[in-house]
């Protein structure tokens, strides 16, 4: 009898522990690689580490104070907020529409899904080069269309406002496919019987969308929002080759600003401070989206 109890206890412990044991290598790798970088970044941001100075004195929060007073940082923060805000709105709408359409397609469904993912599979630098072709040079499609419509023939990348629009469009094109995939996953989990029941109750398409589709995919919407926001805040590989942060500093988002500080100016400590700011913003936004998703689930 005692053996049976001991066996079942061991089984219980094994059952409970197995997921943690299996997760451990992944957690250890993430903690080792990412955790080390974050902790090192936090420490660096409290020191004055500049390549032209031999000493590396502890300066407390001085780097953060300097950063928040810097017009360059203020400009980058503002540009980032506009860039991320626009990407989230446009990207979420686009990916939702794409996901709904892909969910309805019956013919060659896998092919269309694969095609929709292509932008995400292209490297950021290659995407930037493609977008550059679209907007610069005499043969640029955007310039040709603008000229045909009687508009300006000046490259959009040479205009500060339009350049910001171009990088936003390129960013949406690049990262929205993954959000589409997330939302499509959510749509496929909805029980078709719910729609059938709603139809019996006389619900129209819009009512089904508002009262069944959206509430059912709230967790996925939250995940898509998280993806769009943090991928945009960290976006760097499209912007640098596309505009280099210009014209002027009109497209110098926080990630590009951080790169300039850390890898061109070799001002590691201030660059680390920008990294921490981006990290805090990302964590805060993720918490907001998760909380909103949780609330929505509770309401239901």
């Amino acid at each position, binding site marked *: 009898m005692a053996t049976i109890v001991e066996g079942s206890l061991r089984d219980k412990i094994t059952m409970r522990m197995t997921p943690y044991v299996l997760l451990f290598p992944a957690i250890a790798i993430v903690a080792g690689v990412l955790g080390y970088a974050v902790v090192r970044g936090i420490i660096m941001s409290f020191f004055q580490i500049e390549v032209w*100075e031999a000493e590396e004195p502890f300066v407390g929060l001085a780097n953060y104070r300097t950063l928040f007073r810097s017009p360059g940082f203020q400009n980058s923060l503002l540009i980032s907020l506009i860039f991320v805000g626009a990407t989230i709105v446009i990207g979420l709408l686009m990916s939702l529409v794409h996901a709904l359409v892909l969910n309805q397609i019956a013919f060659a469904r896998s092919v269309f899904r694969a095609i929709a993912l292509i932008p995400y599979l292209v490297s950021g630098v290659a995407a930037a080069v493609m977008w550059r072709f679209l907007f610069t040079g005499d043969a640029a499609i955007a310039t040709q269309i603008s000229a045909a419509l009687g508009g300006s023939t000046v490259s959009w990348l040479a205009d500060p406002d339009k350049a910001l629009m171009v990088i936003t469009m390129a960013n949406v094109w690049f990262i929205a496919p993954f959000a589409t995939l997330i939302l499509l996953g959510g749509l496929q989990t909805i029980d078709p019987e719910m729609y059938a029941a709603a139809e019996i109750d006389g619900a129209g398409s819009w009512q089904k969308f508002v009262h069944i589709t959206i509430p059912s995919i709230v967790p996925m919407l939250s995940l898509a929002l998280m993806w769009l926001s943090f991928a945009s805040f960290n976006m760097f590989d499209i912007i640098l080759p596309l505009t280099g942060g210009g014209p002027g*500093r009109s497209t110098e988002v926080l990630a590009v600003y951080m790169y300039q500080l850390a890898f061109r100016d070799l001002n590691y400590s201030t660059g680390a401070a920008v990294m921490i700011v981006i990290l805090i913003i990302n964590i805060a936004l993720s918490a907001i989206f998760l909380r909103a998703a949780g609330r929505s689930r509770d309401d239901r």
Partner: protein
Amino acid sequence: MKHYRKFGIASTATALVCATFLSGTAILGVTSAAYAQDVTEITVWFGRENFIPADAFETFHAENPGIRVRTDVIPLEQAVADTLRAARANRAPDIVQVPADGLAPLVAQNAVRDVSGMMEQWRSEDAASIDDISSIGLDMASIDDTPYGLTLYAGPFWYTYRKDWLEDAGLDVPQTWDDVLDVARAMKAEGRIGYSVIGSRAHDPVWFLSTFMAMGGQWENGVPQIDSDAGRYLLNFYQTLVAEGLTSQDVLAWDSGAMRSAFIGGDAAQAMIGDNVYPTVNESLSWGQEWDGSRPPSRPGAESEGRTMTLGWPFLVTTGAAEDESVLKVLQYMARAENVGEVSARYQPGTVLSVFESEEYNAVKPWAAQFAPEFANLTPLPSHPRQTQIYQILLDAMQAALQNPEQDAAEIAATHQAAISALVGN
């Protein structure tokens, strides 16, 4: 019993594996130690693959069996940062090639060492070969007269123009930047881009500074003085290009590729083009007939102040490098006229003067003889420890001029000079 037998077999197998591994390691260790006793390994980080001699040190190894040169390519853009990181981990190379403006941070961090003794030894052994290197070869690798290495390659920007178009229009080759604008106006009238220029932030503002120096621009302690006659003139020059439509309307998005391709593709009449790009220009246009180049023009009234700026990529000896003798041999090998000539013929021009006289080099670069006298008088781009941050402010000034052609150039110059002064603590 069965359990013990299994355990015994497993233990024996493990022991065998361990023994094999340990003995293998020991053999490897002994072999490495023996190799290390006989051979000194010198690691050289080149900034571009093109800088590595074509024979990949094969001749050197035959001549010096006791020295093994290991090469790696660390892009110039990241060479300073990577060297500093490697130095902290005691993994720095013996010799590293960086842009000349990367020397100051490396000296500040004590990552490179004084090679005065090495240079004296070189002079005592073979004065002719060291005298064959132009003065900038030594200057661009020195700070306050202390040499930290040697610059074997230096690349200036030349004023480049469409000779055929100027002749057709009955125009003389510009001697001043006002003449450049006049040529640009005449070319614009014929539907061409008068002057091709970089306006984006894609690169360090070295073309901008080269023009500034040609206009008589001055530096104080490595800081460019743009709030000066030359600086104001330069900013006004950029403003005029935009205001009169003498350059591309997309200038703010133009990088070096766009600037060059406008000239090479037959759209633009004039540009500042690096010596290393001339072979590419010559593939599309015929030198001496369709295109030509000269030292950059000067500012009217400041002809005597104009200088031709050059970039340089010195090879620096790191603090933890191997003993002087081996390092010196590697430097001397890289500086041989045949090696510098071979690299110069396919890439950046060298600082070894005899190369300019070689028939082989002149056959590949027929314009070389024309520029040889100027090569002896190049002025290195002055360097400041905060150079990269100064560059960002200069890019701001350049783009402010291009975006606001009606604004007072003096105001732009003063604003950005104040920003530079605040940065460097003046």
